[in-house]
């Protein structure tokens, strides 16, 4: 059946495909252009224009959006590639964040460990270099990814979702209550760990206003994740993931080791979540347990689904868009609307409505996302039946087409 639909569609619409290289170069060019724009052009423009940029596209919200991009790329591997619905991705974000909190701050002031960090040697605490912490965060998260993935291997989709959701609730709660675990202060509870060391690069520490350096680092991290995603996808592992996504039983019959392949998806996804967590900790200069809520998992899922599950570029676009709307777009647009029409509407309070409405409308009218992956688009519309299922179903008519 799938085969027939595919043939029909492809003969109907022959679209010149953008190659991965075009997309990569396009995004690289865009990233460079944004960098040049913020570093060299904006300081020389008029004050009015600069304030416009500050309201609509402040560099800090750009950096935050990049953190979301990194995490969403990881979730895309789990959900988009391997088809394992993960509703607890916030757990990895939290673990990554706390890795930064533990290894890059004066929080454990009973110890005195310095490695490659530009922090003065006399300051107590564990101060490792940002790059080392990225590596540690990735390793820890990969470990937890496998730990979380392992019990879910025997489960089918919905049970899988609830187990990951459970982990997504447990891990933040451990951090919230982790102030006193048998007298050991693991996470400083709701007070959080702050400040976290700033990023050190080439023997220089970035100050709070070196946003363009941070931008470069975050773009590089996102680019690494894109590279990993694309390379894995076209490799043996990635094809195995897609096979599992489309039909687990058939995939296992074809000799794909389900267990190892699924665990690999969890591990790679978790690494990405951990990197995002470390980046986020340096972005907000601290780590606070109460931020890690279910809504983060859901927003990430929405980014992946709205952007186009399985397509790296779609996920990037979705993540940038939603992160921007959440952090600056909506308040800025609201202020503008209020000042033009002289009203007093509190737009950010409509976030729930706008977000929910967007999700529903996208699912009803364009469920494959903004930039869909071609294979997934076919699957999403394979059994399209807009009117519910009042008529006897289309299997029969399609067989007649044969």
């Amino acid at each position: 059946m799938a085969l027939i639909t595919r043939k029909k569609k492809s003969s109907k619409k022959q679209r010149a495909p953008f190659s991965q290289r075009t997309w990569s170069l396009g995004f690289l060019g865009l990233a460079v252009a944004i960098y040049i724009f913020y570093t060299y052009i904006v300081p020389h423009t008029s004050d009015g224009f600069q304030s416009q940029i500050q309201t609509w596209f402040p560099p800090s919200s750009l950096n935050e959006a990049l953190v979301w991009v990194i995490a969403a790329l990881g979730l895309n591997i789990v959900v988009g590639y391997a088809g394992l619905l993960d509703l607890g991705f916030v757990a990895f974000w939290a673990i990554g964040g706390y890795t930064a909190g533990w290894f890059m701050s004066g929080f454990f002031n009973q110890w005195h460990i310095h490695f490659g960090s530009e922090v003065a040697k006399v300051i107590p605490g564990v101060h490792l270099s940002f790059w080392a912490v990225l590596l540690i965060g990735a390793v820890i998260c990969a470990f937890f990814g496998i730990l979380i993935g392992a019990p879910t291997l025997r489960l089918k989709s919905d049970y899988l979702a609830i187990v990951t959701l459970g982990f997504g609730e447990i891990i933040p709660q451990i951090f919230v209550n982790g102030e006193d675990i048998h007298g050991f202060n693991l996470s400083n509870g709701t007070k959080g760990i702050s400040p976290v060391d700033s990023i050190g690069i080439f023997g220089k520490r970035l100050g709070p206003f070196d946003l363009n350096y941070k931008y470069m680092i975050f773009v590089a991290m996102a680019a690494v994740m894109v590279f990993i995603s694309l390379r894995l996808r076209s490799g043996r592992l990635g094809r195995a993931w897609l096979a599992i996504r489309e039909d687990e039983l058939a995939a296992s019959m074809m000799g794909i080791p389900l267990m190892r392949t699924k665990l690999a998806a969890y591990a790679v996804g978790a690494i990405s979540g951990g990197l995002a967590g470390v980046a986020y900790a340096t972005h907000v200069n601290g780590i606070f347990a109460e931020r890690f809520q279910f809504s983060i998992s859901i927003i990430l899922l929405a980014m992946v689904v709205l952007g186009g599950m399985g397509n790296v570029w779609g996920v990037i676009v979705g993540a940038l868009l939603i992160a921007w709307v959440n952090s600056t777009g909506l308040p800025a647009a609201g202020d503008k609307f209020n000042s033009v029409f002289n009203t007093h509407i509190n737009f950010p309070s409509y976030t729930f409505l706008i977000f929910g409405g967007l999700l529903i409308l996208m699912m009803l009218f364009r469920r494959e996302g903004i930039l869909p992956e071609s294979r997934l688009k076919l699957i999403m519309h394979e059994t399209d039946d807009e009117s519910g299922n009042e008529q006897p179903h289309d299997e029969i008519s399609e067989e007649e087409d044969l």
Partner: protein
Amino acid sequence: MAGVTYKTRQLRRRYVERSFATIAVAGGSFWLLINLIKSPSQFTEVTFTGLSNGILYALIALGYTLVYGIIELINFAHGDLFMLGGLFSAHFITLWFNQNHPTGAGYGVLLLCLVAVMAFCGIINVGIERFAYRRLRRAPKLAPLITAVGMSFIIQFVGLRWNGSGQKTWPSLLPAGNLKFLGVRLPYTTLISFIVTIPVLLALTYIVTQTKQGKAMRATAQDQDASRLMGINVNRTISFTFGLGGALAGAAGLLFEQTRGLTTYNLGYQLGLIAFTAAVMGGIGNLQGAVLGAVIIGLIQGWNDGLPIGLGQQWSNTVVFSILILLMVFKPTGLLGKPMTEKV
């Protein structure tokens, strides 16, 4: 030969699982026993609180399990519907009918409110299904799931507008105070939640097992195409199921609002999560399982939060979800779920 090794491996696995489960149950019982010896009256009180919470969860969990059983959708909006039910009841009783004491008229309003809130939530749930889920019934599973999340956001928005962002307290029409029985204090509110819930559960069992509509529901849950061929109106049956689930959520909302006397706009998320966990624990799609799972979770929560030797309330969710995860690892179909063979 390969068959033999597979078989021994299965046997070994079963052995490990059995012994692990035995150890876990024995450990849990030991912990309860110590607590019982330490303070029997507190143990009994906490058990009753847990039971009454559990029965509240059961009302919500049934909505999840009904909907899942019939169209295999995790209806994320269901918990928020419960929240909306609570808000509706609070406004109905306190603001529209101006009742804030336990009087005869108050009980009349309470009964009226029960009917009204069940109708209100039932209609909303049917509307949600008609507007959003029905068009996605044949779509891949992720699409209706995301739609349900979107619906949940929209209902939370309504709650936020209606209730405000903070927590609101409301007067209760139920008599305050305790029933003293052999040195154990039982709040009247606990007893009343039993009195309300048990008939509702019995009515539900009657509808599902004895009526024609219930038969149609079970048939649709088994095979939609086959039941359509048998002359069952599948769309109407699914609508009816959503209505039933919504009505239960409404009843739960009223009960929660009256026993705890508070409403918040994000209540639905927390309780919905617990209730859904309960449904999964019992074996999702199985009505008795949902009630059993809900009571177990209510008890575990009650014991964990209230017993003298326990982790305390701040670890409540961790305990509940850890148990859920362990159960999923060793018995993926839930307590009463039947193992399903995969269709090829």
